[in-house]
């Protein structure tokens, strides 16, 4: 079933609905194995100056460009201008024209600055980028980002790195009702059920990093997340039973033994 049911945006198509990160891993090797276990096809990376006096090897030695689509992010940017500049430099590297657009509004909580985010989205869309903006769960802003040409909207489920899951499924539902582009939950996923719940709401995908990278066993958690996203998607498509205070037995009452 996962075969035909794919994640599509900006003319791309992905079998996996899970997007993973590269930060916070114990080491590049465990990251690589976690990526494999996750089944993800998109990996987000930071854009930084080359470390001149570096002993460490390049991140890209651990991400097979044939297997994974690179999604540069603008983490650490606090203004539209910084984010735009970072995105343009990222594209110059020549490995991706997509950008996970982050414009942080609060260093403490890493909540987005939606005003600046919208500005940057408009500019980068004009520049021909495939823009995936990280935003909060505000339905009005989600619609504005979509209207500005975002290829998908990525509302947070909970604050970055909090592991609190989908704090407000109601807002995500409301965003989904109106969205005409994919909705990908970005941030907040702490454990497998968080991802399952996101997908059961009808989200098109989930992006996570901390939940996997900082788990005691990142590779096992990555595999858990692979199953969790598939489970949630299938459950969404399968159509769950209604909730009731209680129901009646499935056991046929006729034929009871006397």
């Amino acid at each position: 079933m996962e075969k035909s049911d794919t994640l599509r945006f900006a003319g791309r198509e992905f079998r996996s609905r899970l997007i993973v990160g590269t930060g916070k891993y114990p080491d590049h090797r465990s990251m690589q194995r976690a990526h494999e276990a996750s089944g993800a096809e998109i990996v987000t990376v930071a854009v930084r100056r080359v470390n001149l006096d570096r002993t460490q090897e390049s991140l890209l030695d651990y991400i097979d460009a044939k297997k994974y689509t690179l999604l540069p992010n603008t983490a650490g940017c606090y203004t539209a201008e910084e984010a735009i500049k970072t995105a343009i430099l990222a594209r110059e590297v020549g490995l991706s024209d997509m950008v996970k657009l982050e414009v942080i509004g609060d260093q403490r909580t890493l909540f987005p600055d939606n005003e600046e985010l919208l500005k940057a989205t408009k500019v980068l869309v004009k520049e021909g980028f495939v823009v995936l903006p990280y935003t909060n769960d505000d339905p009005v802003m989600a619609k504005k980002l979509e209207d500005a040409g975002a290829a998908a909207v990525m509302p947070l489920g909970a604050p970055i790195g909090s592991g609190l899951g989908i704090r407000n499924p109601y807002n995500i539902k409301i965003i989904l009702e109106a969205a005409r582009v994919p909705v990908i939950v970005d941030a907040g996923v702490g454990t497998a059920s968080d991802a399952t719940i996101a997908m059961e709401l009808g989200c098109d995908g989930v992006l996570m990093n901390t939940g996997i990278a900082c788990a005691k066993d990142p590779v096992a958690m990555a595999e858990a997340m692979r199953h969790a996203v598939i489970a949630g998607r299938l459950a969404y498509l399968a159509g769950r039973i209604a909730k009731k205070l209680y129901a009646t037995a499935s056991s046929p009452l006729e034929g009871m033994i006397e």
Partner: protein
Amino acid sequence: MVNGKKLEVPDGATITALLEELNINPLRVAVQLNLEIIKRERYDTTTLRTGDKLEIITFMAGGSE
């Protein structure tokens, strides 16, 4: 100045030469010279002078989430 660090570069050296010397794969970086982005095809022909401000950008592990 390369990535904010003073660096001894022979006057007139090309970006290609510099990357080679720094043992950096040119296919994995973007280069910005005095705030202007240099396309890859111009690495061979673009030479550096004292006082130039060079940025060599690549992908690293990271992201907010």
